[in-house]
């Protein structure tokens, strides 16, 4: 936000802030009280997670939870990302078109250097996710970061993308998730039931596709408006001019 136009005005000093303060302190005290109170029994789900790990087809426990035990949550999460993009794109086109200064030599050469590196790191994280920290989401975040860099520098790479590809890419994650889940059903199992050998394969495929889709969605979210919005009805999508607002 470059402007200094605050929408509200400061309230006069009085009892209200004091009251707020007291309430917030009380809230914090209550939360801490709830947190610190001794709890009997429950040990969480760690043991169950471990016990079923062999069946799940992955070694990393977090990945097992994310993509197998609670894959339904992850499916919906992919839909949340997709929904985020749809919601952002559905907004009225943003008229405020600041003229971007050209990225400059340092930034553009840095991008040329960084982006391939980031893609590499993403790939590594994806691979690492099978048995240690890492996985589709981390990789997706890195890929998204690369996309953001490209957006910021108005890279010609982006304008070279075919028009429909972006939409398809946004949908890729949820579509693939759904298809894998339904494939399990077709094979006579439950929806999204992956076990053993097949599970390992399925989850790797899911991870790759999810990472790509997440990266794309994050970059699209950063864009802050639908690609064609800048030039209603014009032929080509040029997302490169959209950067900057999300900052």
């Amino acid at each position: 936000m470059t402007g200094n136009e605050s929408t509200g005005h400061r309230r006069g000093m009085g009892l209200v802030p004091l009251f707020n303060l007291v309430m917030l302190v009380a809230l914090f005290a209550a939360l801490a009280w709830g947190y610190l109170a001794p709890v009997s029994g429950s040990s969480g789900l760690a043991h169950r997670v471990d016990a079923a790990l062999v069946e799940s087809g992955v070694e990393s426990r977090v990945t097992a939870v994310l993509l197998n035990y609670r894959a339904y949550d992850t499916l919906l999460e992919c839909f949340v990302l997709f929904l985020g993009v749809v919601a952002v794109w559905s907004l009225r086109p943003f008229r405020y078109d600041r003229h971007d200064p050209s990225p400059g030599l340092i930034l553009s050469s840095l991008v040329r250097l960084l982006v391939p590196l980031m893609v590499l790191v993403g790939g590594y994280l994806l691979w690492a996710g099978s048995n240690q920290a890492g996985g589709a989401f981390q990789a997706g975040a890195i890929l998204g970061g690369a996309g953001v860099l490209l957006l910021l520098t108005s890279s010609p790479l982006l304008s070279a993308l075919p028009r429909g590809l972006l939409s398809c890419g946004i949908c890729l994650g949820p579509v693939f998730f759904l298809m894998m889940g339904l494939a399990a059903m077709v094979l006579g199992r439950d929806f999204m039931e992956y076990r053993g050998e097949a599970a390992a394969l399925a989850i790797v495929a899911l991870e790759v596709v999810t990472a790509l889709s997440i990266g794309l969605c994050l970059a699209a979210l950063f864009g802050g408006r639908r690609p064609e919005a800048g030039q209603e009805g014009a032929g080509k999508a040029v997302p490169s001019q959209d950067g900057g607002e999300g900052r």
Partner: protein
Amino acid sequence: MSVPPALVYGLTGLFLFVAGLAGLISCAQLLRKILAANIMASGVFLFLVTIGHGRGGVIDPVPHAMVLTGIVVSVSSTAVVLALACRVQETANIHDLLKRRAGGDRE
């Protein structure tokens, strides 16, 4: 007697939640409200992570998975709220401009 780190993280998480809430309620500027909401979210996530560590060295992966999911959800909401904020701000600017212009004409 040493304080277990999980406790510190947990309390910090709760504190961030409350601090974010304070910001959300009292900040007038939209951007600050959004940031405050993000701080709240971070507090909750931190708190969730500490839950997974609470029990005798065994790390529970489920809260971790919840945090990952939660972060993605939160990113999505933040993106939408920022995009909306841009529109709202733009409208406010235009109104401001119009008002100023109208005022200038009268003077």
